[in-house]
């Protein structure tokens, strides 16, 4: 909301400086977003009289002027056709900056003749479009005076941000009231502000208006003024509107805009010649269209309120006037509408039509329902003053919601809620200055407060406390330590949070870089992962439409961007959520770690030679290491198929605890998917499901006692011939199970196929660690264990190699 300092002073009797006003505005919650004084741009431009004008000796189109800007004649070269002796205009002296082009004026020779400044056009000073000639001021304009001051431009424009609860401050008067409450001056009585305007002497009945939509438009007040002349509005009004960025249009339209900015009261004017019969506020008919003043046509629904005549809707009520009944320069008879529209209804209509306007902003926040008569009266007086004409009586259709709100308030609440003890008398004074009526509560302690009609936002004690403290000053609120539990701070993180932290730092420690990718991906990216359960109705783009069912899409896109930038080795991970839907329609979100590695696993080097890419076991190593870091029982996990379509069907797997609980899926990315993301070479990927990682139950910090075996373990190697299809893991598990007491571990240390190994078979060599109990193994013991191992392997189809 923009206004000028002089405008504010219409309502606020004050001698406060601009800086004091600005500081006070921010202090009371009307945050100053900017302040600009147009006069600053016009520093160095003064009123000057052309004393003499003579032709330039070297140029036909130039003249050499002698100009007096208050300190004697100066020579100025000028190209304007209207430059002539006796003209009073605006002179820019050397050092001044021309607002339109930023040029700094200096003494210079123009075609060999010295020029000591410039006579300016309207456009050069950014005061208008005219560039036909230099500005011509009245002959009696005071020579030597700063032009900005003379033109009334020395008036700072203040831009404040008005929070949605403060409709009352969407008018200059409301801001003045707040500043007065802050102690920055006195709010002038409304009658004094408009004392200079003519009084209204109504003649004849008011116009025919009614409301058939008491829900959307409970009150529709109107009056006509006949015989007006709708020319341009006066200079002062145009200057104000221009200063705040509004375009002056005609006296009638400018009056409605001025009243809206001045008093927060939106109005609308109709050219009565365009109306057929009376006006009615009613619900729109389904499909009814209105051509609004912005030139666009809107199709309405029966939930919306229109102002219509016999021929149909003119106006989207309270939001925007209609093109066909707006005031123009030919308007002679005008109907002024001053209505009250229900905020909720305006909000719904505005949202549905995606149509914003100054009127909507005010109506949807709730204009003062007690200000219809006065608003209409002031508007009428302005019309009479600027356009003449004969006013009718006022027609009042319906009634605005005037029920005053009274609240119980205990002044002690200020200290208990805001922490600052403002004396009761001071609280009462603040509230009264803001327009609240304060009475002692007849039923006992505290006060009964009547909320002024313009403060729809104040509905409870907390609001009243806010009023008191914002005017008293939030700087008065002391800093009070939050009560602290005795002792050292307690552990607060949940088990899942701890898993997340451990995974993150373990991954970073293993050389992976954490990225954060968008939670939304494209439908095409989601498809290989089974698509997404959640598709946005209003995505920002097709690329960001589906809430991801996988973290891989985002990581693969990031990997491609890095590859495009020339990254040789890419190791990215992300900790985030995958989004699914519960049966009850609520969101089911899974904390997940996604991991993608592409490019070189190891760069070429003088020790190892060629660069090496990633393979399935590189990703398996990461997954197992991360799961171990997260506390998962890695040794108990089973490697099973079922990683999904995103992966190479033969080089991927899941890690499960029991057949159902999938802790991780990983492997070589399906080449088709890698190609879809424009990634070359082998790409490996994994997802770890954080919620599936079982939390070790911990009872205290004590570890089990340390009891190393008394005797040293021995190892024995076994080489088996096994069918190709036999999983190494199955063989190893079988061996481990062959003698649980003796066999501490078994692991594959060699895999061989080809020469010497029959077709369809492979040779697997397993190192078995045997741990003796209280006595060493004898030859017979070892033989018995070995026999059990061979028998267990045989059950898996593996035979001991001879």
């Amino acid at each position: 909301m923009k206004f000028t300092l002089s405008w504010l002073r219409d309502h606020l009797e004050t001698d406060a400086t601009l800086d004091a006003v600005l500081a006070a505005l921010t202090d009371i919650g009307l945050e100053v977003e900017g302040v600009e004084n147009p006069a600053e741009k016009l520093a160095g431009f003064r009123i000057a009289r052309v004393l003499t004008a003579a032709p330039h000796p070297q140029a036909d189109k130039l003249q050499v002027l002698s100009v007096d800007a208050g300190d004697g004649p100066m020579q100025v070269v000028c190209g304007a056709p209207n430059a002539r002796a006796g003209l009073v205009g605006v002179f820019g002296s050397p050092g001044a900056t021309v607002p339109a082009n930023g040029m700094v004026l200096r003494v210079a020779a123009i075609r060999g003749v010295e020029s000591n400044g410039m006579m300016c056009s309207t456009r050069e000073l950014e005061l208008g479009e005219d560039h036909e000639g230099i500005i011509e001021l009245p002959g009696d304009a005071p020579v030597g005076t700063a032009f900005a001051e003379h033109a009334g431009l020395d008036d700072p424009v203040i831009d404040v941000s008005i929070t949605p609860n403060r409709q009352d401050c969407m008018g200059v008067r409301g801001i003045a009231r707040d500043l007065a409450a802050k102690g920055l001056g006195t709010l002038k009585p409304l009658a004094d502000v408009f004392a200079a305007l003519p009084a209204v002497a109504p003649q004849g009945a008011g116009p025919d208006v009614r409301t058939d939509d008491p829900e959307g438009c409970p009150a529709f007040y109107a009056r006509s003024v006949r015989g007006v002349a709708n020319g341009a509005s006066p200079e002062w009004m145009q200057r104000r509107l221009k200063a705040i960025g509004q375009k002056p249009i005609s006296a009638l339209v400018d009056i409605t805009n001025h009243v809206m900015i001045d008093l927060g009261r939106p109005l609308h004017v109709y050219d009565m010649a365009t109306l057929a019969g009376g006006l009615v506020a009613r619900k729109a008919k389904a499909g009814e269209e209105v051509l609004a003043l912005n030139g666009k046509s809107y199709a309405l629904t029966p939930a919306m309120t229109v102002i219509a005549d016999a021929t149909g809707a003119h106006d989207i009520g309270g939001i925007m006037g209609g093109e066909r009944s707006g005031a123009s320069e030919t308007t002679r008879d005008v109907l002024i509408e001053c209505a009250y529209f229900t905020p909720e209804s305006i909000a719904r209509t505005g949202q549905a039509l995606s149509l914003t306007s100054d009127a909507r902003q005010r109506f949807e926040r709730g204009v003062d329902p007690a200000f219809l008569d006065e608003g209409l009266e002031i508007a009428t007086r302005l019309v009479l003053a600027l356009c003449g004409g004969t006013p009718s009586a006022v027609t009042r259709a319906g009634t605005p919601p005037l029920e005053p709100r009274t609240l119980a308030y205990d002044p002690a609440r200020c200290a208990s809620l805001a922490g600052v003890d403002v004396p009761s008398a001071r609280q009462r004074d603040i509230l009264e200055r803001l327009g609240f009526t304060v009475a002692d509560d007849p039923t006992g302690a505290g006060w009964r407060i009547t909320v002024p009609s313009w403060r729809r936002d104040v509905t409870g004690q907390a609001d009243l406390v806010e009023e008191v403290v914002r005017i008293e000053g939030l700087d008065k609120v002391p800093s009070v330590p939050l009560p602290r539990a005795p002792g050292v701070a307690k552990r607060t993180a949940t088990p899942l949070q701890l898993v997340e932290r451990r995974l993150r730092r373990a991954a970073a420690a293993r050389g992976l870089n954490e990225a954060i990718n968008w939670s939304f991906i494209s439908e095409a990216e989601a498809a290989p992962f089974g698509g997404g359960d959640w598709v946005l109705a209003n995505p920002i783009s097709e690329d960001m439409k589906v809430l991801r069912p996988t973290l891989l899409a985002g990581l693969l896109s990031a990997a491609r961007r890095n590859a495009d930038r020339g990254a040789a080795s890419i190791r990215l991970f992300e900790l985030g959520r995958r989004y699914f839907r519960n049966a009850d329609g609520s969101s089911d979100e899974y904390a997940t770690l996604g991991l993608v590695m592409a490019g070189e696993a190891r760069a070429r080097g003088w020790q190892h030679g060629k660069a090496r890419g990633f393979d399935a076991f590189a990703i398996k190593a990461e997954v197992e290491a991360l799961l171990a870091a997260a506390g998962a029982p890695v040794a108990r996990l089973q490697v099973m198929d079922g990683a999904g379509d995103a992966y190479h069907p033969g080089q991927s797997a899941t890690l499960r605890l029991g057949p159902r609980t999938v802790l991780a899926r990983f492997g070589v990315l399906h080449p088709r998917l890698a190609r879809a993301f424009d990634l070359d070479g082998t790409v490996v990927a994994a997802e770890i499901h954080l919620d599936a990682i079982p939390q070790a139950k911990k009872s205290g910090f004590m570890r089990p006692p340390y009891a190393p075996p008394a005797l040293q373990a021995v190892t024995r190697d076994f080489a088996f011939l096994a069918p190709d299809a036999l999983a190494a893991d199955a063989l190893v598990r079988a061996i481990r199970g062959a003698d649980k007491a003796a066999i501490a571990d078994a692991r594959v240390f060699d895999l061989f196929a080809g020469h010497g190994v029959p077709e369809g078979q492979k040779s697997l060599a397993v190192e078995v660690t045997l741990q003796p109990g209280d006595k060493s193994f004898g030859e017979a013991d070892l033989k018995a264990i070995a026999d059990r191992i061979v028998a267990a392997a045989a059950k898996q189809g593996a035979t001991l190699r001879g």
Partner: protein
Amino acid sequence: MTEIISLQDGLLADIARTDTLDEVEALRVGALGKSGVVTALLKTLGAMTPDERKAKGPAIHALRESVTAALAARKAALEQAALDSRLASERIDMTLPADMPPQGSVHPVSQVMDELAEIFADLGFSVATGPEIEDDWRNFTALNIPETHPARAMHDTFYFPDRDVEGRAMLLRTHTSPVQVRTMMGGEPPFRIIAPGRVYRSDSDATHTPMFHQVEGLVIDKGIHLGHLKWTLETFLKAFFEREDIVLRLRPSYFPFTEPSVEVDVGYTLEKGQRIIGGSGDAENGGWMEVLGSGMVHPNVIRNCGLDPDEWQGFAFGTGVDRLAMLKYGMNDLRAFFDGDLRWLRHYGFSALDVPTLSGGVGA
């Protein structure tokens, strides 16, 4: 006697002349072996009379000792020379590069979230979470933002076409505040939580991304007032920026879910074109920067969450995690946070070992 001396001289000279361990061994066998010359002399001792033995014995023993010692010394010298020569031959260029493990990193947003958790844990706050796909009741209505409230328009909301079984419209949460609602409805007061997480607004330009991170704070207890909020925020910012000269400016503002509502500015000083947090914003070269929105939780919100606002009250605050990271660590482009550029991640990211702790300082 003289023959013993000359034998000794001869043997010692031979030992000194050896070049290899084999030659040393051959001499040892020749002198001290079973049929060695020195061994033979030692054997003569047994056949001697006591007087002869007294006269010759010491010389023969001396011969044996000096030859044994000379052989050992020669052997050690030759072994040392052999080792020296082997080591000399094994010299490599130690300036060659060693294999370095890849350098991983923690994203600044994660790091800052860990910092926040650490600081607030000390103040007794735990970390709460909630879904990012929310219903409009928890995201708006419960927070005192009815359907027609202009504040709904302030949030550019991403909607889904779906509704849950209760008929509530589903959306991407526009702030972390629904976690307040879930916390209050899901437990027994008092509450002290922070809720960091992803939030979404349909907004994308140079300084806005459609997804970003917020952290919410909530205290619900008895007798909590605005003064506690002020202290909490001051204390938090001092701890976060690790500066004692943090100056806050509280401004009245408006959020539907708090009353009174307070916007919090922090003072900064302009140094070499960079805004450095600290000092009063009113000082020379100073300015105020909006960093937090906050206020006393609105009685309607407390009521909506099933608590009695006459009994329980407290404050809430919220701020951007990405923004806090930018202010502390100097990034200037929000979009880069979500680009996954390895160069950026390595530059602004953190080592796995930079775990924020109170004793080591939460900043890294």
